[in-house]
């Protein structure tokens, strides 16, 4: 499918939440992301996997509108990010370990601030719901800077769900959580996708988590998507026992997969 055909499909398919077409980011002679094309559909969690420096965060930053692509197109619910940034980002939200909320404001103040920016209707009620959902009620008036990293992660996730986003970008959302809390959070996010109408792009280095939560995975290496498929069947298709083995093999020998194509 060429880019033109893909564009037509996106425009005619209301099930596609995120459409990324031929995305490229180049810094001088370095190509960080090259010809990346993928979709995220409604009620779908897509895992974006790859070794450090593969281009995952660069891709997410471009989808969030804080990094301009050198080429390519991004549409969120059919709205072109480059042309209608505000409308597209109103349907989006994110949580990332490298973007903690301001530590000098309380949990409530942060949620209120971002809730107003996302123009959330009935904001107070929404904040109260999220405080309960992420077990943050007792930290309501605590400054985020004094919370543990796991508690801060839960606040970031609560902020990410404030506007009930159609597209949720989660960059290693459970990295700072203990296994029990991480499992609860995964279930909670899985429920949101199952019962809601949005989709999620999820990055993680925890392959067991990816296998548990993602419907589909994209393997990124050196800025290119090398593999795509169901995380439960993909290892078998490539003659390895687990997703972790596949990840290690791909990280060490990306050229072998690049030659085979997607």
């Amino acid at each position, binding site marked *: 499918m060429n880019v033109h055909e893909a564009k037509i499909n996106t425009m005619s398919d209301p099930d596609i939440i995120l459409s990324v077409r031929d995305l490229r980011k180049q810094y001088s002679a370095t190509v960080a992301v090259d010809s990346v094309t993928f979709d995220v559909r409604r009620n779908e969690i897509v895992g974006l996997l790859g070794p450090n420096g593969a281009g995952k965060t660069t891709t997410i930053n471009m989808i969030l509108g804080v990094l301009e692509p050198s080429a390519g197109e991004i549409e969120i619910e059919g709205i072109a990010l480059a042309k209608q940034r*505000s409308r597209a*980002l*109103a349907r989006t939200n994110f949580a990332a370990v490298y973007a903690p909320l301001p530590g000098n404001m309380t949990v409530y103040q942060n949620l209120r601030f971002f809730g107003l920016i996302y123009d959330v209707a009935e904001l107070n009620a929404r904040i109260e719901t999220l405080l309960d959902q992420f077990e943050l009620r007792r930290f309501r008036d605590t400054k985020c800077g004094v919370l543990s990293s796991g508690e801060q992660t839960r606040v970031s996730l609560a902020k990410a769900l404030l506007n009930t986003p159609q597209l949720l970008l989660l960059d290693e959302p459970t990295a700072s959580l203990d296994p029990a809390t991480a499992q609860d959070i995964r279930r909670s996010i899985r429920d949101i996708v199952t019962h809601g109408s949005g989709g999620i792009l999820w990055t993680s280095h925890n392959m067991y988590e990816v296998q548990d939560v993602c419907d589909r995975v994209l393997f990124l290496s050196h800025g290119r998507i090398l593999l795509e498929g169901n995380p439960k069947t993909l290892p078998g298709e490539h003659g390895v026992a687990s997703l972790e083995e596949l990840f290690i093999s791909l990280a060490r020998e990306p050229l072998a997969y690049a030659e085979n194509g997607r």
Partner: protein
Amino acid sequence: MNPRRIYAIFLRQFYLLRSSPTRVVPLFAWVAIDIVLWGFIARYLNTVSSPGHDFVPSLLGAVLLWDFFTRVMQGVTIAFFEDVWSRNFLNVFATPLSISEYVTGLVLTSIVTSLIGLVVMLILATTVFGLSFFVYGVLLIPFVAVLFLFGIALGIFASALVLRLGPASEWLVWPIPALLSPFAAVFYPLSVLPHWMQWIGYVLPPSYVFEGMRAVVAGNAFSSSALLLGLALALIQIVLAYLCFSRVYRSAVRSGLLARYSAESVG
């Protein structure tokens, strides 16, 4: 522009001010010290100068208006620095918030914080040193308006500078008012400056305010067209400063600086 988003930018600053005396005290402490210092200097000069000449309206009035302008500028820059200090750019700019809403929120914050400083200065200057603003008459309104607009313009420009050059460059921003004051005719007429300095003074809106203020105090003819020119210059400079901020922002998005701001440069 969405008023809730503009309010959010202001509300964030309000939350920070409410919980932090170290943010509240500078709103009025330094300007109050300036008023006390220059108030006594004006009183002393009154005792050693020719009888009947009052330095309070010209000298203390000039200090008050100049400090007001400084507070307006810093009202914008400090609100911007809060996002720099808390590394909040990614959270703030990966949202539907537009640059115009963000900048308007910074300006709204500055209006409130600079008014606090202005009220404290007015109370001190009038009650302790007998400065009467009736001396300036209704011209006080355009004087304050021009200085306010120029403070906003410079605040937006200084924020653009820090966005472009990185967090450490905030130290370039603090001395800007002191750097401009010799050219802005705060305490002396432009005519005493060398020609090259006068030309810089002509593009600075405050110089029209202070020239006008001295003319009014001395009972001399006052050129309202000059003040209008100062007003027009300040408005043009706000537009230019906003365009500069937008351009720097777009460049930071293109280069990747916004996403990796703590690195200070991505070259």
